[in-house]
């Protein structure tokens, strides 16, 4: 079984964020980047399916030069090859433009499954995998918490998260796009051997023309959504903040919970 996995490189959720001078996005200088959390789970699921069926995993990522590091990590845990869409023309797109470019790259090879994460930790569209499915004309499922191959690989039984602690079970024909939710498995770590091998694995970087995309069909130029600015949210009333040494804070907090809030 041949599986494509889309991984996005995003700012570490632990990082302190600053708004860029032009106000249009965050300042990326000195910002630590990691593989989007859900995508780690998608990659692990792909590796397990490929191992079970004697197949191959190819990782795809769209983003600037820095993304190479994320691809190397994916190669180190077991992906066979990587495709990096880094041409300037690909960048700055909304989910539609990004999904179209990724689909164009994926279409060039024959895959049985495309796995993505359910949502990115930066843009948070929760849409890119679905757009890829639409572009390819394949069925899809979002928030996937279980994948079971059936019928000699012609279909999958999918467990999908619903609201308030319920799961939906369904059968979807292949090829399909599955958007994997965190918690579906326990992602592995790269071994030293894996890290060494990754250095020799191929990372291809096709340009838009090679994918059959014209100017205006990809990246910022093709986006239907314009990002005007980002800002820290107005905090509203917010919390009463307690300051001082831990012991003093603790005593004060308990006192207020007893006297003011009357919940202790």
């Amino acid at each position, binding site marked *: 079984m041949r599986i494509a996995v889309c991984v996005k490189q995003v*700012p570490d959720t632990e990082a*302190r*964020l600053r708004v860029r001078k032009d106000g249009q996005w*965050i300042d990326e200088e000195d910002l630590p980047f990691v593989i989007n959390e859900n995508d780690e789970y998608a990659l692990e699921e792909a590796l397990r399916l490929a191992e079970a069926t004697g197949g191959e995993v190819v990782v795809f990522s769209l983003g600037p030069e820095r993304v190479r590091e994320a691809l190397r990590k994916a190669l180190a845990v077991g992906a066979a090859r990587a495709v990096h869409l880094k041409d300037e023309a690909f960048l700055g797109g*909304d989910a*539609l433009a990004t*999904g179209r470019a990724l689909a164009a790259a994926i279409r060039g090879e024959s895959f049985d499954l495309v796995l993505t994460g359910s949502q990115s*930790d930066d*843009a*948070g*569209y*929760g*849409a*890119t995998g*679905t*757009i890829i*499915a639409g*572009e390819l004309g394949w*069925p*899809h499922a*979002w928030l996937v918490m279980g994948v079971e191959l059936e019928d000699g690989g012609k279909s999958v039984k*999918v467990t999908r*998260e*619903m*609201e*308030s*602690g*319920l*799961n*939906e*079970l*369904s059968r*979807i024909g292949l090829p399909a796009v599955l958007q994997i939710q*965190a*918690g579906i498995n326990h992602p592995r770590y790269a071994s030293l051997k894996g890290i060494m091998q990754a250095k020799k694995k191929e990372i291809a970087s096709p340009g838009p023309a090679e994918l059959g995309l014209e100017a205006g069909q990809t990246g910022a130029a093709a986006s*239907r*959504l*314009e990002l*005007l*600015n*980002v*800002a*820290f*949210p107005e*905090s*509203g009333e*917010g*919390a009463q*903040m307690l300051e001082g040494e*831990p*012991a003093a*804070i*603790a005593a004060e*907090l*308990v*006192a*207020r919970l*007893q006297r003011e*809030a009357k*919940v202790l």
Partner: protein
Amino acid sequence: MGNAIWIVLEHRQGKPHRMALEAVAAGQELARVTGGTAEAVVVGGAEARAVADQAAGWQLGAVRFVAGEGVAHYTPGGYAGALAEAVEADRPAVVLFPHTYQSVEYVPRLAQALGAALVPEAVSFEQRDGRLVWRRPVLGGKLVAEVAARGEGPVLVTLQSGAFAADQLAAAAEPAPILEQSTTAAADREVLGVEEAAEQQVDLSQAPVIVAVGRGVGKQENLVLVRELAEALGAEIGASRPVIDSGWLERERQIGSSGQTVAPRLYVALGISGAIQHVVGMKGSQVVVAINKDPGAPIFAIADYGVVGDLHEVVPALTAAVREAKAG
């Protein structure tokens, strides 16, 4: 293109989803601001007719009932297909959806089919320089982005839970007309059933005090601190998703949109950033205490008492103070 505002009503068992009502209130407001007409759209089989009938009682220009066998049960392909036909035929300016798991799954497919602008998870809108500007959280709610659609054609917007108040929904003096149209859109999956995600043995919804722990706890061994505080407070332990996903606590203790919804008298959030998917599960708490090392963590915006600090230092001190208070 018309100036109609459509609101797609998600429903189950003949009743609209709670968030669909919020979307209708938002749509009515948007129609006022833009001078357009708000219309509800119901997609489904015969059972959904009851939803269309109910919607006819709200202040709307019309209720569109898009019916067909292929959409009697929700599937993303069926719903996206049915709505693509309807939108193509009548070209509304804006189509609103509740930002539910169902909408997130199929609305991007509709956007792709139509080549339409997609605004996921909007929390508010504003008319500015002749443009509709939408606000939506990014980076886990640490920042808010303003976005606007470029180019012509319908804009598809999903609205975050709680962003608009359902009690603002205006009722109609006279029932709105129900326009029925049929669709041949087909299902793209075979639904086999629905099951509980985890065996539920603890019912956190009834707990008077909850100590909830997030990724900030660092590792499973550190949960000892949390257990001690919970014991001192006589509290149940809950958790954010990453703690559960890491296997540090059982899935039944997850609080949030995919887990339990709780409303204790006291909710103590330790090392939890306050992402919306967590907050929807605990915002009914009477008093919220947040301990977090990041002063910019969104949890402080909804907390009543906040402590900026390392939970490994603050929690043991708090446990001691609680024990002392209870003893004294």
